């Protein structure tokens, strides 16, 4: 058996797994290579909160043993992946980027999605850094430090799933799972130049993950190309108990259909999504929309209200979720999280109810738009990655506080649970992503549009020299 892949060398996941399944690549050697890369680069990038070398090598050895015995370890055989720090890993306390959670009992089992990936042969190498309790867009964590962007180490990797995105971008693992409540997959995908998927609300079971905002939390993932992302998405699909919001719908595999040409009706989002993006973001969205054949600008007049509603509900729900701990030990929270959560506990019921009632109105507005379009295209972030600690970003001619405003373009869309694929466009010194937005339950359309952009050379993840 030979080792085909050196540390950091990047093959399609399907190709790498095939090499393992056919006995041409040792899973142990593959994992050792990634662990060596983590050991070398993570002290600088700070992607991981825990590296699980012993578990990873044990699982990789089991895969090699299966291959030697003539058994198929699965479509993700030997592929190293990571999960955001809010996914349960058996035997480990799910800290969710906090120290408040350290007093909780260790998880008794892996999160459902981790179990499914393991059954497909993927190998978990560790848990990854995030904003405390997923409340942020920059992964500048007071307890675990900031994650650095592999494209420019002085810049943010985005958040809140920043450790996961930076790890994939730097080749420390081949894909990663994150969560997205208001943009926490799409923002880091944009800043790190990756493909990311936030499926329809209720598509993936959140069983075994730590919540933030129950009616906005989505699970999803990152990869360096559409085929990898689709393969991971196909692997984790399917109903499971333990998440009341998970809909009992049959999986809709996408991988086999990625090669089909995309020919849907495409709208380029204007208004809010145009005015609040900088030139690079607007150009990226226009480039993607044009490549997909868009001819019109689509408008969602309620986007500002939808964003406001998501903003208010997030703060109120987060405050409610952590109320007991805020009362007993507020000093243990990250200051950037604490003050917002405390404010959330003080919101009047009138405001929270009004925010909830806005959802139905915006959902109807979105539904009407999807009668005319199959996918919508919008920038994912107002700008490319800001510097770590940068206090403001310039949006629409105004300097706005960085942290709360990076999600301006993602928040209205997750408010109504739409499936979205973030697609990296390298049209500047730093990457930026656009959102491919599909109607509910049509992740397949968004992924096929992303594949079309990849084939056209418009979208691709950029190599990080390290």
């Amino acid at each position, binding site marked *: 058996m030979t080792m085909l892949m050196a540390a950091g060398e990047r093959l399609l996941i399907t190709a790498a797994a095939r090499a393992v399944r056919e006995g041409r690549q040792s899973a142990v050697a593959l994992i050792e290579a990634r662990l060596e890369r983590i050991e070398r680069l993570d002290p600088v990038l700070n992607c991981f909160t825990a590296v699980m070398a012993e578990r990873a090598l044990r699982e990789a050895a089991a895969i090699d043993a299966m291959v030697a015995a003539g058994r198929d370890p699965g479509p993700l055989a030997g592929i190293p992946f990571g999960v955001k720090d809010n996914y349960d890993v058996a035997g480990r306390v799910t800290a969710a980027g906090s120290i408040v959670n350290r007093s909780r009992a260790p998880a008794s089992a892996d999160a459902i999605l981790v179990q499914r990936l393991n059954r497909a042969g993927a190998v978990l190498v560790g848990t990854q850094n995030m904003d405390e309790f997923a409340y942020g867009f920059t992964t500048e964590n007071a307890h675990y430090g900031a994650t650095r962007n592999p494209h420019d180490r002085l810049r943010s990797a985005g958040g809140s799933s920043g450790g996961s995105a930076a790890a994939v971008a730097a080749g420390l693992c081949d894909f990663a799972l994150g969560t997205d409540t208001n943009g926490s997959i799409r923002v880091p995908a944009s800043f790190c130049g990756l493909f990311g998927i936030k499926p329809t609300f209720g598509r993936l079971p959140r069983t075994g993950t730590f919540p933030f905002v129950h009616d906005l939390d989505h699970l999803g993932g990152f990869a360096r190309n559409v085929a990898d992302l689709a393969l991971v998405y196909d692997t984790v699909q399917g109903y499971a108990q333990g998440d009341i919001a998970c809909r009992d719908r049959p999986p809709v595999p996408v991988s086999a259909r990625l090669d089909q040409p995309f020919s849907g009706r495409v709208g380029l989002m204007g208004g809010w999504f145009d005015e609040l993006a900088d030139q690079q973001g607007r150009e990226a969205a226009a480039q993607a929309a044009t490549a997909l054949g868009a001819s019109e600008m689509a408008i969602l007049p309620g986007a500002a209200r939808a964003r406001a509603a998501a903003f208010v509900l997030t703060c109120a729900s987060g405050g409610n979720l952590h109320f007991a701990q805020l009362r007993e030990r507020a000093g243990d929270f990250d200051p950037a999280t604490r003050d917002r959560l405390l404010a959330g*506990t003080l919101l009047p019921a009138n405001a929270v109810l009004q925010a909830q009632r806005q959802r139905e109105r915006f959902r109807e507005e979105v539904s009407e738009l999807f009668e005319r379009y199959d996918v919508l295209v919008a920038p994912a972030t107002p700008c490319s990655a800001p510097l770590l600690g940068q206090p403001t970003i310039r949006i629409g001619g105004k300097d706005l506080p960085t942290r709360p405003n990076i999600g301006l373009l993602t928040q209205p869309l997750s408010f109504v649970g739409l499936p979205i694929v973030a697609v990296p466009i390298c049209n500047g010194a730093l990457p930026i992503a656009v959102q491919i937005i599909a109607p509910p339950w049509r992740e397949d359309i968004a992924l096929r549009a992303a594949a079309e952009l990849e084939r056209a050379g418009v979208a691709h993840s950029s190599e990080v020299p390290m």
Partner: protein
Amino acid sequence: MTNEEVVILAREAGLSIDPAYLPGVAHNIGVLAEQIALLFDPPLDPLAEPAPAFRA
């Protein structure tokens, strides 16, 4: 909102907030108030509701 007003609100909510946190909390309430204002203009139809209604 003043720090004193935050203290009164917090007391009603069953919270005792460390004085060092009050300016940050007051600031965030101000940010939230700007967003809340957007939710009331224009008024919602009385039939707009948040219930998890099933649709065919």
